[in-house]
Every structure is written in C-alpha cells, then in structure tokens.
C-alpha cells in the first residue's frame, strides 16, 4: 500500500469528518419497521400460507353457498298408479311407478327405491314403506302442517352465531399468535446474535421496539384486511345476505379493534422475548401471552350466546377484539358501546407499551438464563 493514500481504501477522511449525528427516533423506527416488513414479505412460507388461507376462506364461503345444492339428491319413491298423482308435484322426489303394492314393497326392500307409498288403511289413506328409518322429509310432505307464525324471524341463528364466534376467534387467535411469535423471534434473534449491541450504540432501544411493533402491526393489519376483504368478496360473489348485511359492520369493528389490540400484544411479545437469550427459551417466556390470547378465543366459543359474558368481554382489552364484533353482529348493545370498548383498549394499549418498553430496554443486554419480569422492571 502506498504511503500517499493511507486510509483511502477504508474510506475514512479525517479532514472532512462526517457530521451526520444520531439518527432521529422516528427515522430509526422507520428503518427498523421497513426491515421487519421486507423480511416477512420476502419469506416464501409467509406468502404461501397467506395465499392458502385466503383461498380457503373464499372457497369456504362459495362452497357454503352452492355446496348443499351439489349434494342434494332426489329421493326415489316407488308407488302405484293410484297414488302417483298425489306425489307428483312434490319437490325433490323421483317417482317410480310400479304395477302392484307388492312390487313397491320389493323395490324398497331391494334398495331400488328409497321409500315406497302404497294405499293404506289409516285416516290418510297412505302407507309409507321404508327400510329402517322413517323418511322424515317425505312424511312431512305428505302430512298436514299446522299454521305457523314466526314472532322474530330475523333473530340470529344460534348455530350461525356459534360459527361466527369461532370464525372471529380463529382469525384473532391465528393472526395474533403468528405475528406475536414473529416479533418474538426477531427480538431474540437480535439478542442472541448480539447485533442488538451494534444497534443500541447507534439508536435508542425504544426506537428498535417501536420499529418492530410498527412493522409487525402493519403486516398483521394487512393480513386481517385481506381476510376481511376475502370474506366480503366471497359474500358478494355468492350474493350471501348473511355476509353482506349481517357481517359487514362486525368485520369493520373486528379490523379496527384487532389492529389496536395487536399493537398491545406485539409490544408484550417483544418484551417477553427480550427476557430470554436463546430462541429455545422463547416458549417459556411467551406462554403467559399465549394464555392471554387463547382465553378470549375459547370464551367467545363458549359464551357466544351469553349476552352478559360477551358484554364483560367487550370491556376487557384482551377479549374486546373478539367480543365487540360478536355483540355488533347480535345487535345486543347500544351504538356507543363499541366506541367505549375501543377507548378502553386504546388507553390500555398505551399503558402496556410503556410497560413493555421498560422491560425491553432493561432486559436487552442481560444474557444467560431468563430474566424475571419483576427484575426487568427493577432494572
């Protein structure tokens, strides 16, 4: 190396020292968030699993609309000429006219017909023949129905409510856990590899935390919006009244509350991950959070028809993202209640972020065995 250009190769130039100064808090947050997002978007497994999930959702909705029609088979009913006119014109029956009652009996026995109708001695004048089980839909069609008046025809179907509860629960559970684990992995990766020391020398710990929470929240929000869009698009394709009329507002509330709730969970996951030094210990550190996420998931399945339980859950920050949309769907609350739930959740999230930032900042350089939460707070 020639003595005339020392340092050139390393690119240092002491005569013109750089006066860049420290990267600002939000600039650093942005750079960290950008890396989090790009790392995920470039991950094939992330893209593929998201795509599969969307396909399943749209497919499920379309199938639930047209599926039953595919499997609806006409019931083959054997009968004799005298009764045939009475059966013709009934829906879903395939009538097989035979010459004698005995032939009908044989056809049912051999399985050639699902059921048979022959003249009988009872008040209806009909005798229904079947193998083992009463063909209830056929009997219903041949019976005289009493008059019926529905007092609340628009009340939610309990089965449907149950499935909707499971739906919100699963989406909340899956997204929160997936992205929660992602953020935890990313925190412990930095801690384990010690790159965090290099980062801490350049930017504040809180900016790193903020960047991670922001980046992953953007991803989680994006995924939830995609899921919501898939549900609504599926509903539009099939013209489903349920999806279009009943679930529109609940889905909007779900997206809003989930996004705020996820910021809270993401901050907690980051703090929990900062307590450990190796990714093997992540499970232990994050299991309390797993419980916090699973409880609302199970509670909404169990209590989907219990208005009081849902009301309480809608004011508890951890379960609000699931309980509020259910209550909106069931229309069991005043118009302002979701806003109150949102306010409580947002306020609680601010507190949680302050707490998580403290734990994160103080545990980041502690290596070895897992740091206890209370030690992390003591500093």
């Amino acid at each position: 190396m020639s003595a005339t250009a020392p340092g050139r190769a390393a690119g240092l130039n002491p005569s013109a020292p750089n006066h860049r100064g420290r990267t600002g808090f939000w600039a650093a947050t942005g750079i960290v968030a950008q890396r989090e997002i790009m790392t995920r978007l470039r991950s094939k497994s992330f893209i593929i699993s998201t795509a599969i999930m969307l396909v399943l959702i749209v497919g499920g909705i379309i199938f639930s609309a047209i599926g039953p029609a595919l499997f609806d088979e006409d019931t083959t009913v054997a009968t004799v000429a005298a009764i045939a006119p009475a059966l013709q014109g009934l829906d879903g029956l395939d009538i097989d006219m035979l010459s004698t009652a005995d032939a009908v009996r044989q056809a049912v026995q051999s399985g050639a017909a699902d059921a048979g109708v022959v003249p009988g001695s009872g008040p209806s004048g009909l005798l229904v023949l079947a193998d083992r089980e009463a063909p209830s839909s056929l009997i219903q069609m041949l019976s005289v129905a009493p008059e019926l008046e529905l007092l609340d025809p628009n009340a939610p179907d309990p089965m449907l409510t149950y499935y909707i509860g499971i739906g919100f629960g699963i989406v909340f559970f899956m997204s929160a856990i997936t992205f929660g684990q992602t953020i935890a992995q990313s925190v412990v990766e930095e801690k384990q590899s010690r790159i965090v020391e290099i980062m801490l020398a350049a930017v504040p710990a809180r900016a790193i935390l903020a960047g991670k929470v922001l980046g992953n929240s953007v991803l989680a929000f994006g995924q939830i919006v995609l899921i919501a869009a898939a549900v609504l698009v599926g509903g539009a394709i099939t013209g489903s009244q349920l999806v279009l009329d009943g679930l529109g507002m609940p889905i909007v509330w779900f997206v809003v509350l989930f996004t705020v709730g996820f910021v809270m969970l993401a901050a907690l996951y980051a703090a929990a991950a900062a307590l450990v030094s190796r990714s093997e210990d992540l499970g232990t550190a994050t299991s309390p959070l797993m419980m916090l996420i699973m409880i609302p998931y199970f509670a909404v399945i169990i209590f989907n028809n219990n208005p009081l339980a849902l009301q309480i859950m809608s004011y508890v920050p951890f379960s609000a993202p699931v309980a509020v949309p259910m209550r909106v769907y069931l229309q069991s609350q005043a118009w302002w209640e979701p806003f109150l739930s949102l306010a409580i959740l947002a306020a609680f999230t601010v507190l949680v972020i302050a707490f998580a930032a403290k734990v994160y900042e103080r545990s980041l350089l502690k290596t070895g065995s897992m740091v206890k939460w209370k030690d992390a707070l003591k500093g």
Partner: protein
Amino acid sequence: MLSIHAISRSFNGQRALHDVSFEVHDGLMTGFVGANGAGKTTAMRIILGVLAADSGEVHVDGRPITADNRAQFGYMPEERGLYPKMKVHEQLVYLARLHGMTAAAAGRRADALLEQLGLGERRHDTLESLSLGNQQRAQIAAALVHEPTALVLDEPFSGLDPMAVETTLEVLRDVARSGAPVLFSSHQLDVVERLCDSLIILAHGEVRAAGTREQIRAAHTRPEWVLETDDAGFVRGIGGVEVIEFDGGHVRFTAASDDAADRVLREAIERGSVRSFAPSIRPLNEIFQEVVR
C-alpha cells in the same frame, strides 16, 4: 482522542470496573489486554453507551461524549452477531442507515468495503452461508460501513485464521492511519504486542499498566545487561552494579546507569575476550504476568 475518566461499574454488588482511566489517541492502535473477566467488555460497552457507568466519564476530544459521537463509532461486540438469514450487503446497508447514512451512500460504501475485504462475490449471499472466516470479515465490514470516526473492537482477532488476521489488520491500520482512534481488546498478549502502538493492561477491573511497549517496559523493569566472557566474577566488584545471575562466564546484572554498564564492558575487554554483551530485554509477557497478579 477518546479519554476514559475514573469509570466504575458493579453488577449486583460485584465490582467489574474500579476507577478505570485511560486514553485512546487519534491515529494509534491501542490494545486492551487482560484475562477473561478482567472488565474489557464492560469498559467497551460503557464507551459505546450500551451500558451505563456507575460513575466516571467518557470524553471525546475533551468534551463529554454524546449520542451523536457514539452513533459515529464503529463497534464490534465480543460475541459476533449479524442477522444469519439476511444477505451480507443488505445488512451492511441496514446498519449504515441506522447510523444515519442515506440508503444510496450506504450501498456504495458497502460495495467498496466488501470488495476490499474480498467478499465482493459473496455480497448477495446470506451470512449463514459464508465460512466462519468470511462471516468474521463481514463483521469487520459492519463495524466500518458507516465511516466511523473511532473504532472499538472487542476481540477482533479471536477465531481468525492467519490470513484473515492480516486482512483485518490491514483494514484497521488504514483506519488508524486516517487519524481515527482504534481500540481493540484481546486476551492474547502476543497478538497485541505485535499489532499495537499502545497498550492498556487490565486486571480485576483495574488498569495495571498503560502506554507504549517501551513505556511499559521502562516502567516495569530495571535495565539489565547480560555479559558472556571467560570469567565474569569481577563484575561483583564494580560500583553501581548488582549481579542477578552468575555462572562462571555468564552474568546478568542491573546497573544504576548506562555509564556503570559501560564500565563493566570496558573492564571485561581488558580482562579477556567478550563473547557477548547486550541489554537484556524483558519479554512483555513476563511483565504482564507480573502486573495482572
């Protein structure tokens, strides 16, 4: 210049650093030597602001160090770490941006640096796909990518093969030559002795010796000479001289002054033939063993 003033730090009541002061001069390679657990890493973390000192101050060019100063330092932590699954060039750009460089400048700088370190062709490979030596080079690049105004490297040579030591050394020397203070730690005294302009010996959280090799030697040894002749018994009779070792024709002695030593030589020449006369240089290693005790 980087100066450390009276830094102390304890962990859970255990003293890691006690009243540590030293200086890292611009343009000099300063070696930080000490056994494992002597407090080298703690001191470096405090300089970088990654850890807070219980008391004491770090100064840059006479003024208390600021976050802005630190953001322009290059740092290599003891346990190596970059993102294993991120491409080398990409992570250099990421780190440079966190240190305040624009993406474009960071990209150009990362290109040049990887080329210089012989990693040009591997720039789009993930870190984990590189050999250990190359990962180490990438780590050096990470400390240099934002054009630092000072370098603090914790054990930069540990685990390096001789080739990689030379490459790394060349890069560090470039930085020092450009006028930046360079501080690096090692528990291998021989490495430090060979590479450093200046040394700081740390033991049990205290500075036991500091200065250039010559200064440290001067401070910790009385000048000694060794004479080889036919019969060296006469040396005992010369004033200002104390014999340390004597065995027939071989004698090792200390002298109060160079004059006294010269008298010994003159006397020896008059008495017979002198096979050898030379100052005995005490190996730094010996001094190190002594001061860290």
